[in-house]
């Protein structure tokens, strides 16, 4: 296990050594995790009074030019391989399936218009969407059921997940590409009932005032909620 590990002489109290130790711990914690970690968790691993922001910045600088980078996704922190090296890494796993156009468009509509109902998605695309399209996006873990819109028929509202952000390397939904264009053209707030206009996609878990919570186990038992 230790072939190339040199013995360390850690001097706990010496200031510089302390700093390095913080770097080592952060690095190890981030390295061991497959999922992005939030700052509260990271802070809990450092001695009281440590400047987490500063430590993260330092770690980021250290990794910036290397083959692994420190990145911020979904408001959390993670180590990821540098994306310019993707083709050099080629894992054994089969390449991910290409999404169908219907799935890409549906995902985009959910991402940019969330919270959004199935009827609204259909209205934008101009075609009915097969149940399979939303289901598979949900199964992939990118789309989730949020709640129910407070309108007749109480249609389910959909939004994106943290995993969606992680997959596309986004820190938050407001980082979505082309968001400004859509917003500028007035496409982001015109589908909402009057009085509920929110000009930005919003994936925060708290329901909006025009949303009701899902009942227990509601999600799956609901083939025609939007009809």
């Amino acid at each position, binding site marked *: 296990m230790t072939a190339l590990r040199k013995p360390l002489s850690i001097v706990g109290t010496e200031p510089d050594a302390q700093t390095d130790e913080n770097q080592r711990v952060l690095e190890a914690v981030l390295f061991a995790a497959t999922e992005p970690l939030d700052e509260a968790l990271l802070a809990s691993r450092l001695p009281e009074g440590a400047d987490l922001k500063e430590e993260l910045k330092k770690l980021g600088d250290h990794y910036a030019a290397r083959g692994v980078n420190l990145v911020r996704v979904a408001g959390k922190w993670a180590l990821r391989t540098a994306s310019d090296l993707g083709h050099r890494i080629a894992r054994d796993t089969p390449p991910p399936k290409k999404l169908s*156009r219907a799935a890409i468009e549906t995902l985009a509509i959910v991402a940019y218009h969330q919270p959004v109902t199935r009827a609204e998605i259909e209205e934008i695309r101009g075609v009915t969407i097969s149940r399979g399209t939303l289901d598979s996006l949900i199964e992939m873990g990118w789309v989730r059921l949020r709640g129910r819109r407070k309108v007749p028929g109480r249609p389910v509202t959909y939004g994106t997940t943290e995993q969606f952000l992680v997959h596309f390397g986004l820190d938050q939904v407001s980082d979505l590409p082309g968001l400004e264009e859509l917003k500028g053209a007035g496409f982001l707030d015109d589908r909402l009932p009057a009085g509920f206009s929110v000009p930005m996609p919003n994936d925060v878990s708290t329901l909006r005032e025009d949303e009701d919570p899902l009942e227990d186990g509601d999600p799956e038992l609901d083939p025609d909620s939007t009809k």
Partner: protein
Amino acid sequence: METSDFELPEAERASHEPQLVVDVIGFEGPLDLLLMLARTQKVDLAKISILALADQYLEFIARARDLRIEVAADYLVMAAWLAYLKSRLLLPEPAGPEEPSAADLAADLAARLQHLEAIRRAGAGLMTRDKLGTEFFARGMPEETDPLQPQQFTATIYDLLSAYAMQRQKKALSHHTVKQRVVWSLKEAREALERLVGVSQNWTRLDTFLVEYLVEPAMRTTVLASSFSASLEMVKEGHLELQQESAFAPLWLKRRPEPRPELQVVETKQ
């Protein structure tokens, strides 16, 4: 997005899911087709001529029908709508009560096309981002931080029971296949219209256009009769209002407004 995107073989575009709408022409719905046609005008979508677009679309559908290609009903509903819109744009006849102007309707349609286009670009932009597992990778070998406790999973008894019931039920009920309808009812056509061109809360008289595009010429009389009774039914159910200015004059229809969402909210709060 290039025109070639619209010429993907069926197998490729449908790789991930069963296509619900069997779409013989190879487009993802009428708006998709319209967007492609609009691009041939080679102008900014904001400056598109809806009249020319309607002509192109109707021509396309007419050609498909001449070739005896079965055209999905959504396309025909859109054709009916465009034929109606075209007649309004060409002959500014005295509008029915409270009717939106033809220019407004055309502008709405242009806006929908721009929206779809913008969403497509956004979707394409999303897909060209560096993605986890393709361009960048997460830690491949998670380190067991506590070897005694690997990843824990949770599920509730509720999850278990609903998963079980749902599967059994799906299987048990799956034998009841619904026979495919030959002719769309007027109600279905109107629902498709709402999806395609938005909800019009105003008086319209496009039923003659719908009838023309939705059915074979030989069936027109009977379908006109049955769609008339269907609209009466919808009036009775409170979904629709009907108006006729004099005998044999065109019928005007209007969707009954649904209760406003704001009112709904107030109600639930009480």
